[in-house]
């Protein structure tokens, strides 16, 4: 193997390398710390040049240098060494410098020494999310940090998930955290175009001390994304990375009938008239021998993921830059859903000779093309759309063949499915009908278009100037710009096209294009004072001013009647004023005006909204002897959203006690880190309803008889203001045995006051049954635990490193105050209970004597009458009580095995997909679960399926399908091999090489009876499941 590698790489060498580097020699060696442990990631730079290398995981390096040049070895926290090149091997032992420990990225402050952080912040290292074939930044956080709960509603490439930090903090307002990329707040929903490989780290800001600085946008927590930057003095580094993966469907946790079962069931068991009724056993056998379709096999495909990425970073004494370019392509597990994206990122940082003036720019440009199929969450879908491919594995009739006689896929349907008339012509109504679901879904996925082209740019420029002793002034300007072009085509030749714009129109099909533009600007200026007043006392204080402005515009059209020869082109549109005369009501054979129909009138739309936020805020921090610290933040926000209450003030105070630095701890060797943190503060949430929620609007538009009509917009309470979250946090950061065991334990209690919720009104008195107002209170109380243990650490004598880690969150949510006691029907928000709790009539199984469905009445007694008034709170909640993740990183020499499991527990969802295949009312035209074969037939029979004579029970199911949606999932497992740098040095071109195989979402353990328990929807209704992915890739460093 080794020879082979050298052989291949020698080829490279022959081609390029010798010519370029012939005059130099290779210097290699190992960089270790003062105890002899290798230092991975140390920098080796040729003095006075941009050329440099970093050491590998064993501390090894190799670099091309001329005799007489000087190499500078440096590592964070260690004193640099300069050594003149005199031989081919230079081993260096660096001495520990001033104790520079791990850093934490905080809001507005950049990186600070973790020991001096008094707030609750979880950091996710970028290396753990790199090269994971999940395309949406938010979803990557699942299981990665304590208190961060991520759920995606669809496995479709390009769909984003929902993130909750420490539970649901709002009832009607925004519940998701604010995302800030390199200082620029960005849209929460459009992450598909960001390249996660560009991320250096993610900081999840959880408590008030961390988030109060974001004022009225910080109550849901904040996720600060820091992207990779070149390191000053690191020289030139080039990296190429690639990944190839395949995605397959997850395990099916329900079973539907096969052809023979279904036809026999229709004939023998199901009341009423169905296709199977008149068939003999022989006929059934013949039909099912010929056709026994498992529609899962037809609709699921193997999706692929492909990524190529090139990144270049440079660092000289005063400037550094990082540039990356990525191409990423992901195909979904069903046809017609895929994502392609190009992303470009550049960070540039520079400073003046004196280092007093620093400046930086960041720029991300992304372009993605995303094709969607009809799924359960897209564009307000419910999942019940007949062209949703994921409905078909459930209800597709097994006796229908998906193939034409010539073996190709049948995209139209059959006579049996209602799509064809007896003479073989297509029946537009039948083709769009229930029985034809399977073919309709195939047809839509193949012939129709639902595509989003997204262009996203996030950029900023910032500078600061240390203009006087202890004083720094600075500022930044940033923009987050998203442009989405949506193209939806119902092709004239498709089944949906048959009835678009109408069944009788002569021309068919429609094309809709929507242009959406969202621009967010942020300008910020600050003045910072920093002074070590005495040896023991240091003070930092900053004053900021900030202005945010967002503008969102969209416009679009829908045109009808497409020329099939000009797909996607405006030249193919039928003129809007084309009249047709399908009927001749007076029978005179002439087109009369009263029979005139306009089928092709295009639809047009345009809208715009804006919001502005102006803020002044200040922070101060005092440190005494590195043992005690106090931080305080205050922010005054003014928003355009609440014209009557524009101003809000938010604040926090936090203290820390670094117990490990106390003198009395110097004797306690076992404890290396011990820090107590306490914080309290008030943060806000202004994201509720529309951007004009504080103004009573009147909508104008085409109304009765298409004349302009005025209608009151949503009734508002003009006195509304932001929701305020009062957050208390106490935490302990600890490290034992030289930080082999390290972790953070936090207890928090967050009480959100003035929550936006429904203030109940009398419809009879006011015309409205509710108005959104600041009327509710809710609390989240919980514990975050994050822990890691280095079982084995790599050393000069031990090639093994074994590390295990876990994080978890327990969160108890309670609605403390809600006018009217509750809102909602079966999924309720109710006072004294967690938000989103199920309230239903309890299903009590089947009466063995007569097969009748049984319920529990409100007193818990058995009854055979379904009465909605018997509904009770089930103590089952949609939001999970426990979330978290755990895993292990094991490495031996060049091999590393990393794994991450994520879990969600104590969460309940309504499984409406299963309710459909156990609804015998539909069994005439929809396949059924095999469980239906256990339906009650004889007195005394104990079964959980009622007698079929009671028909479809879906309206009276009660809590029958509210299922435990807890799960444990092997989220990611990676095995990688990093090639020894001693081998690579022979190539003279590669300085690092890593090869890996990876599995994502490989195994899921759950009681949920469907494809995928995970969702941000309380009801599962034919969702697009998250796929299992296997991938292979390598990283090359030059």
């Amino acid at each position, binding site marked *: 193997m080794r020879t082979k590698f050298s052989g291949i790489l020698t080829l490279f060498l022959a081609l390029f390398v010798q010519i370029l580097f012939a005059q130099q020699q290779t210097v290699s060696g190992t960089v270790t710390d003062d105890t002899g442990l290798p230092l991975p990631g140390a920098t080796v730079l040729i003095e006075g040049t941009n050329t440099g290398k970093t050491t590998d995981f064993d501390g090894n390096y190799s670099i091309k240098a001329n005799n007489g040049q000087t190499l500078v070895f440096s590592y964070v926290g260690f004193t640099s060494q300069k050594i003149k090149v005199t031989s081919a091997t230079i081993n260096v032992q660096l001495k520990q410098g001033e104790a520079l420990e791990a850093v934490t990225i905080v809001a507005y402050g950049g990186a600070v020494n973790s020991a001096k952080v008094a707030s609750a912040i979880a950091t996710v290292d970028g290396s753990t999310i790199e090269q994971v074939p999940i395309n949406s930044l938010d979803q990557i956080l699942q299981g990665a940090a304590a208190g961060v709960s991520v759920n995606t509603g669809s496995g479709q490439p390009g769909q984003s998930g929902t993130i909750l930090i420490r539970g649901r903090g709002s009832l009607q307002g925004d519940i998701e955290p604010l995302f800030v990329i390199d200082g620029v707040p960005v849209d929460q929903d459009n992450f598909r175009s960001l390249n996660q490989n560009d991320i250096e780290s993610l900081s999840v800001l959880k408590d008030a001390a961390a988030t109060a600085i974001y004022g009225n946008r910080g109550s849901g927590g904040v996720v600060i994304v820091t992207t990779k930057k070149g390191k000053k003095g690191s020289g030139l580094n080039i990296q190429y990375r690639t990944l190839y993966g395949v995605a397959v469907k997850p395990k099916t946790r329900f079973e539907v009938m096969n052809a023979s079962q279904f036809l026999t069931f229709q004939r023998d068991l199901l009341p009423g008239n169905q296709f199977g009724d008149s068939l003999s056993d022989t006929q059934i056998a013949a039909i099912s021998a010929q056709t026994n379709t498992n529609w899962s096999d037809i609709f699921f495909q193997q999706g692929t993921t492909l990524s190529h990425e090139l990144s270049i970073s440079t660092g000289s004494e005063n400037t550094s830059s990082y540039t990356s370019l990525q191409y990423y392509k992901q195909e979904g597990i069903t046809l017609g859903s895929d994502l392609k994206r190009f992303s470009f990122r550049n960070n540039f940082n520079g400073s003046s000779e004196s280092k007093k003036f620093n400046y930086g720019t960041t720029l991300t440009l992304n372009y993605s093309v995303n094709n969607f199929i009809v799924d359960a969450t897209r564009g307000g879908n419910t999942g019940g759309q007949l062209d949703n491919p994921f409905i078909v594995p459930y209800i597709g009739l097994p006796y229908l063949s998906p193939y034409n006689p010539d073996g190709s896929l049948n995209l139209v349907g059959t006579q049996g499915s209602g799509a064809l008339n007896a003479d073989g012509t297509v029946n537009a109504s039948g083709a769009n009908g229930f029985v034809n679901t399977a073919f309709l879904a195939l047809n839509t996925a193949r012939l129709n278009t639902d595509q989003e082209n997204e262009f996203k740019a996030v950029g900023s420029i910032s500078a600061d100037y240390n203009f006087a002793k202890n004083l720094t002034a600075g500022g930044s300007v940033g923009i987050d710009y998203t442009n989405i072009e949506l193209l939806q085509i119902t092709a004239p030749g498709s089944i949906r096209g048959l009835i678009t714009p109408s069944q009788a129109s002569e021309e068919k099909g429609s094309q809709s294009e929507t242009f959406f533009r969202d621009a967010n600007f942020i300008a910020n200026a600050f003045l910072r004072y920093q002074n070590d007043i005495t040896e023991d006392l240091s003070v930092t204080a900053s004053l900021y001013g*900030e202005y945010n402005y967002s503008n969102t515009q969209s416009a679009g059209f829908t045109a009808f009647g497409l020329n099939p020869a000009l797909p996607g082109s405006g030249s193919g549109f039928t003129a809007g004023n084309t009249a047709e005369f399908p009927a001749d009501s007076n029978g005179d054979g002439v087109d009369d005006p009263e029979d005139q129909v306009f089928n092709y009138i295009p639809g047009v739309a345009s809208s715009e909204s804006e919001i502005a936020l102006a803020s002044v805020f200040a922070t101060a921090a005092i440190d005494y002897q590195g043992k005690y610290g106090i931080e305080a933040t205050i922010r005054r926000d003014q928003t355009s959203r609440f014209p009557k209450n524009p101003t809000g003030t938010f604040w926090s105070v936090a203290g820390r006690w670094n117990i490990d630095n106390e003198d009395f701890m110097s004797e306690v060797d076992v404890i290396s880190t011990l820090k107590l943190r306490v914080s309290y503060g008030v943060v806000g949430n202004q994201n509720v309803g529309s951007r004009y929620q504080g103004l009573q609007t009147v909508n104008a538009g085409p109304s009765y008889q298409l004349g302009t009509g005025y209608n009151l917009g949503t009734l508002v309470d003009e006195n509304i203001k932001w929701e305020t979250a009062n957050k208390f946090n106490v935490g302990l950061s600890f490290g034992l045995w030289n930080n082999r065991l390290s972790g953070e334990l936090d207890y928090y209690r967050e009480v959100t006051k003035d929550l936006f919720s429904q203030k109940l009104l009398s419809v009879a008195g006011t015309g409205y049954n509710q108005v959104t107002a600041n009327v509710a209170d809710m609390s989240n109380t919980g514990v975050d635990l994050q822990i890691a243990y280095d079982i084995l650490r790599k050393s000069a004598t031990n090639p093994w490193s074994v590390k295990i880690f876990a994080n978890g969150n327990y969160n108890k949510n309670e609605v403390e105050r809600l006018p009217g006691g509750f809102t909602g029907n079966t999924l309720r928000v109710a006072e004294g209970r967690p938000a989103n709790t199920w309230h239903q009539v309890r299903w009590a199984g089947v009466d063995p004597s007569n097969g009748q469905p049984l319920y529990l009445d409100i007193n818990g007694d058995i009854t055979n009458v379904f009465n909605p008034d018997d509904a009770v709170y089930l103590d089952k909640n949609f939001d999970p009580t426990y979330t978290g993740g755990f895993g292990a990183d094991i490495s031996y020499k060049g091999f590393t095995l990393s794994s991450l499991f994520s879990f969600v527990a104590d969460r309940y969802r309504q499984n409406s997909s299963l309710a459909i295949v156990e609804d015998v009312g539909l069994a005439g035209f929809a396949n059924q679960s095999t469980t239906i074969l256990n339906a009650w037939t004889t007195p005394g029979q104990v079964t959980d399926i009622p007698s079929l004579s009671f028909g479809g029970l879906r309206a009276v199911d009660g809590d029958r399908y509210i299922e435990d949606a807890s799960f444990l999932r092997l989220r990611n497992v990676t095995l990688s091999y990093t090639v020894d740098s001693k081998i690579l040095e022979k190539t003279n071109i590669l300085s690092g090489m890593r090869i890996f195989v990876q599995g994502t979402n490989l195994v899921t353990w759950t009681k949920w009876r469907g494809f995928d328990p995970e969702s941000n929807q309380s009801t599962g209704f034919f969702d697009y499941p998250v796929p299992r992915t296997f991938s292979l890739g390598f990283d090359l460093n030059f």
Partner: protein
Amino acid sequence: MKKYFLIPIIITLLFAVSCDDQLERFPVDSLVEETAYQSVSDLEAGLRGAINSINRGGGTASLIAFNSIFTDNTRIGGNNGGQQLNLLNQILNSQTGDQGTWADRYNAINNFNRVLAGAAAITPGASETSAYNEVLAQCYAFRAYLHHDVLTYYSEDLLNGSALGVHYQNTVSTSDFPARATVAENLTEIDNDLTLAASLMPSSSTDKNFATQDFITFLRARVALYSGDYTTAISNANSLISSYSLANQAQYTAMFNGDTDTTEVIFKFDNVQGNNSNIAFNWIFTGTGGNFIEMSTELFGLFTTGDVRRTVNVDPASDPGANPPLLTIGKYPAGADTNYINDYKAMRLSEIYLIRAEAHARKAAPDFAAASADVNAVRTARFGSPQTTAAYTSLNEAITGIKAERRLELCYEGFRFVDLKRYRNILNQGIERDASDCAGGIPCSLPVSSEKFTFPIPQAEINANPNMTQNSGY
């Protein structure tokens, strides 16, 4: 030290960045209520918006759907995938049972009240007075119409003036928690609004798509009949019968198929392309035309050959001979214009004939001959040839005959449930479905004593409003 001069500059800059005058942002796509109503033409826009907010036959809160599906005029359709199962199963509870009718009607009433409030702030010029008055008249007329709807469905006993009625909403409020008035008080308010409307309505207003003087007369007749004031019902009916004539068979067909004839229409909600409430989608799927609700076999059997109502109500796509029979409801066909655009004919002359028939039969000194003559007039028009209906001999017989005729004439127009409710105590009949129309666990009857003949006050109202009284049985 001179560098410190930068500090004041920077601080000024900090506050400049957070300047306040950037914070006044007004919506681009909508008006603000305070300034929305400036002229009579704004009021007219408000009126159109308010009318548009009334249910026009399809969608949520469609009483056409409720009256048909809850009763015996429909059965589950061949393509039903769960649609309207609650109504078929006669589930009527305070959570969702009223189909949103209460909220829909009161919201529409509120819209009219807001137009009236806007009008109060405007003094019309001389040339605008007529237009201004018409807006007011329309608002009062529709307010009466909508309140009568609410009263009909939510009051337990329309014939008892001291029974609980509903709240009569005639002011704009965002904090009112009203109690229920009595039926008699409601009737007075309705009458007041109609009187005001009649006094303000210009005689030139004859557009059948809006309220007119005839609309007011019609509503008076209907209100009077439901509340037992039979002489008023008869006098108003007489007035309309003298100025309109019943549609002949061709006109009847054209009235429902393409909305091209309005001979006997007194008022209809206009549905047009681009603003259509899709009445047909109460029973068939958008686009495909598949049935999730079909005509009941019982009702189908009642349409005899020669009756134009058979061809109007039974869509040509039907196949009565199939097993099970396919009976597509044809009253709101794709029609000549193919786009399922059908007006909601809310007031037709035939109803007036049947109102007068019933009033004659129920008045203090019943005139059964006049009653049967009015029924016969309708039948004659529908058959296109003189029909004979023997004079009734008792109230029971008269009501049985009128109820049957109303079923045929007014099916799928939002009357069946109300008729069953109003006649149930005379005939001692609840809802009886034919066995073929209630297969598969769907209930076959609703007893005459059921509370479900009155809608429950929605739970949302009860929860919000401590002064509201729930109807008995809920």
